[in-house]
């Protein structure tokens, strides 16, 4: 009964979305206010209907309603409650429903908070948003319906893939989707602006916070995903340039570019066409990511051919959304007039360069991800593209970007004094150089990348701190004045400094973690030990450990340094009888600077156990840095100027309208 209610709510949501995409658009074209006013309540209702459907599916999972095919295939009555809930989006149908839920959530947010938007723009934005909703709701209903029943009702479900039964999975997809789908907002605003033929600072002031929300969520989502892969998959790494990872990283790169170019539109009323283009591209990349992950093309081009309905449907959505929006862009973009002018050396130019580098980097990732698929489709060789490709293309593009990042914020709008900026950065440059030289000495010149990476991180960190210090005139003005300036520093500029510093932390983490990882693989009997990176790992014992839907063996390993035991960890090996699968539960001891990572392998015939142990220096910084970036983003979001959104019209004019 509740499942039927959910199914019905989903159909209702599709119908509302159809109404929402047609009526307000017609109303905006004819200037008919009643038709435009349909948009906001429709968006709210659509969200309500999808939320109801989502709640109904969750109910099916929590109560283990095995008359639902989706629940049978992905759940089991013995599964812990948390994984029953997260199992809702641990499968294709449910995750698409989550996609739709978040899409409509953003639509509802425009409807609820967009009171200050010009009515025609708001109507068009919500209409475009409705169209995306139509596409995805139809996709769910016609190809991936989670509410299909199964007869006869099986006694129990088939369970969820054990590696997905993890708290990391609870939060990774929702944040990833909040980010992915959040760029739909920028997309809807961009298409609406193209139809209106008008982009102004007020438009950018609306788009920027929503892009920032999406960006923060995506950053967090990617960070959680990488962390989950690190502790769950047990190979000691945190990023593999896997197509699934790239699918989320490409929108992040172009979204980051969009975030910066929207600033130029807002503050300087220029770069409009490019910003619109980026907004279209960013959401297109999100759609591409959805297509790559959801159509099955990654597991095999042939899987796509086996179940063509889903893949073809998303591909059609992709073609319509990307093709349609780009055609519209080609037709209408030349009409966008920019007023601001600027010199080649200015903050505008620095941001353009930032955009060019980020866009090019996204392009190299795009080519690396899609080239093997392309080659396979045309029937050529089977190839794979791995980390060496990205190290040779992506990394060189990041070097100038980071060099620029320290200098960019010091440049003034319109015309900047490059010599002056470089002079202000001389201390940061000297410190970065010193750090790089220390690294060269420490590695005895054997490593080229490490001094470069750490030097860049130091340059970015010190450059950012110097910009902050100059802004509040630290050590340059009397303390009172510094305090006043500190108080008047906007949260947006704090956010910028913090986010940039976060990237410096991440770069340091990536450099050290990829250069200095140490590893040992050995069979140990209870009582034996391995030495690795100055620590001694002693294997004490293995004990059986019963679980709700698995059985496990848990080892006890004591880690000591100079004879002093500082940690005892418990790696384990889980066997899921239902799926006949074995997974490993990695034990990680972290002190914030480095991780000791212990994996329990297979038992050996002679009574020993295989152990794989990694020493991962500075790896936590990869995620700390990402969290600092998110913190910067959130701080910037809380800035009053952004919270208000579009400027409130003068009361006099509003009164005039009322009187008329």
């Amino acid at each position, binding site marked *: 009964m509740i499942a039927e209610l959910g199914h019905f709510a989903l159909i209702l949501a599709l119908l509302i979305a159809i109404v929402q995409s047609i009526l307000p658009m017609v109303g905006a074209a004819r200037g008919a206010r009643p038709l435009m006013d349909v948009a906001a309540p429709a968006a709210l209702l659509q969200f309500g209907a999808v939320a109801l459907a989502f709640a109904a599916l969750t109910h099916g999972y929590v109560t283990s309603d095995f008359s639902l095919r989706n629940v049978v295939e992905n759940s089991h009555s013995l599964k812990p409650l948390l994984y029953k809930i997260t199992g809702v989006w641990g499968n294709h149908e449910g995750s698409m429903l989550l996609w739709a839920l978040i899409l409509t959530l953003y639509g509802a947010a425009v409807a609820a908070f967009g009171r200050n938007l010009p009515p025609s723009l708001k109507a068009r934005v919500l209409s475009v948003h409705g169209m995306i909703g139509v596409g995805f709701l139809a996709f769910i209903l016609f190809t991936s319906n989670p509410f299909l029943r199964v007869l006869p009702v099986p006694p129990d479900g088939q369970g969820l893939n054990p590696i997905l039964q993890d708290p990391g999975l609870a939060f990774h997809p929702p944040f990833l989707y909040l980010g992915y789908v959040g760029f739909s907002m920028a997309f809807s605003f961009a298409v609406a602006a193209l139809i209106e033929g008008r982009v102004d600072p007020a438009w950018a002031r609306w788009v920027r916070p929503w892009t920032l929300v999406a960006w923060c969520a995506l950053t967090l989502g990617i960070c959680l995903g990488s962390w989950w892969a690190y502790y769950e998959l047990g190979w000691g790494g945190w990023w593999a340039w896997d197509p699934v990872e790239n699918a989320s990283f490409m929108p992040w790169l172009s979204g980051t570019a969009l975030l910066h170019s929207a600033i130029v539109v807002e503050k300087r009323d220029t770069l409009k066409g490019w910003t619109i283009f980026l907004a279209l591209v960013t959401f297109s990349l999100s759609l591409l990511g959805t297509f790559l992950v959801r159509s099955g093309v990654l597991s095999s081009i*042939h899987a796509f051919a086996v*179940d063509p309905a889903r893949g073809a449907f998303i591909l059609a959505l992709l073609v319509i959304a990307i093709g349609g929006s780009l055609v519209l862009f080609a037709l209408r973009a030349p009409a966008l007039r920019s007023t601001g002018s600027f010199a080649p050396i200015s903050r505008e130019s620095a941001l353009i360069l930032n955009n060019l580098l980020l866009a090019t980097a996204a*392009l190299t990732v795009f080519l690396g991800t899609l080239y093997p698929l392309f080659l396979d489709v045309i029937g050529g060789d089977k190839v794979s593209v791995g980390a060496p490709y990205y190290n040779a293309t992506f990394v060189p*593009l990041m070097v100038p970007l980071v060099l620029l990042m320290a200098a960019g914020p010091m440049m003034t709008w319109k015309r900047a004094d490059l010599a002056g900026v470089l002079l202000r950065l001389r201390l940061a440059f000297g410190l970065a150089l010193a750090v790089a030289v220390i690294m060269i000495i420490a590695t005895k010149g054997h490593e080229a990348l490490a001094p470069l990476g750490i030097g860049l991180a130091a340059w970015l960190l010190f450059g950012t701190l110097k910009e902050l210090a100059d802004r509040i005139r630290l050590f340059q003005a009397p303390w009172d004045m510094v305090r006043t300036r500190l108080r008047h520093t906007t949260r947006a500029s704090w956010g910028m400094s913090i986010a940039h510093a976060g990237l410096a932390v991440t770069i340091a983490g990536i450099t050290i973690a990829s250069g200095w990882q140490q590893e040992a693989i050995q069979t140990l009997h209870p009582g034996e030990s391995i030495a690795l990176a100055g620590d001694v790992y002693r294997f004490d014992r293995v004990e059986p450990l019963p679980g709700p839907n698995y059985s496990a063996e848990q080892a006890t390993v004591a880690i000591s340094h100079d004879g002093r035991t500082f940690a005892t960890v418990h790696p384990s090996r889980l066997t899921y009888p239902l799926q006949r699968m074995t997974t490993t539960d990695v034990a990680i001891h972290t002190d914030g600077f480095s991780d000791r990572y212990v994996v329990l392998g297979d038992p050996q015939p002679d009574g020993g156990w295989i152990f794989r142990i990694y020493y991962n220096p500075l790896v936590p910084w990869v995620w700390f840095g990402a969290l600092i970036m998110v913190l910067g983003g959130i701080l910037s979001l809380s800035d009053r100027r952004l919270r208000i959104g579009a400027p409130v019209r003068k009361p006099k004019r509003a009164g005039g309208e009322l009187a008329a």
Partner: protein
Amino acid sequence: MTRKRRRLIFVLAGMSCLGIATALVLNAFDDNLVFFYSPTDLVQKHPGTTRRLRIGGLVENGSLVTSEGGKRFDFKVTDGKTDLAVSYVGVVPALFREGQGVVAEGKLGPDGRFSAVTLLAKHDEKYMPPEVAEALKRSGEWRPDQQAAAPGAADAPQASARP
């Protein structure tokens, strides 16, 4: 500075960015593309011993020998027509066993033995690496009812053993 001149500068900057990217990508493709071979392909095409490549097929029944305290694995990978001797040192993925599909990345030795640096296997017993399925189909050894590639296998992240 006129608007035209400014535009020219930015177009040039954009073009040079794209140019650099193209050069980087072409150069990287030249060196870093890893090609896939079935054992039969490998014998026929002789890709040489310097390039990194991927091979795949089924781990032949009865061919797996473990040594060096469970760290070293010697086995044969077959596509039904040709066998290829493979050796690997490290920890194998949980689902690596005889009769299962496997993809190995590494280099071909001068003695014709393939030394694998990485073994790839999905965390799903029904899963068959697509390259392996393709190679088996070509050699006529494909039995889909036994080894159907699980639809939606892309949902499960690839687990791989890297030494």
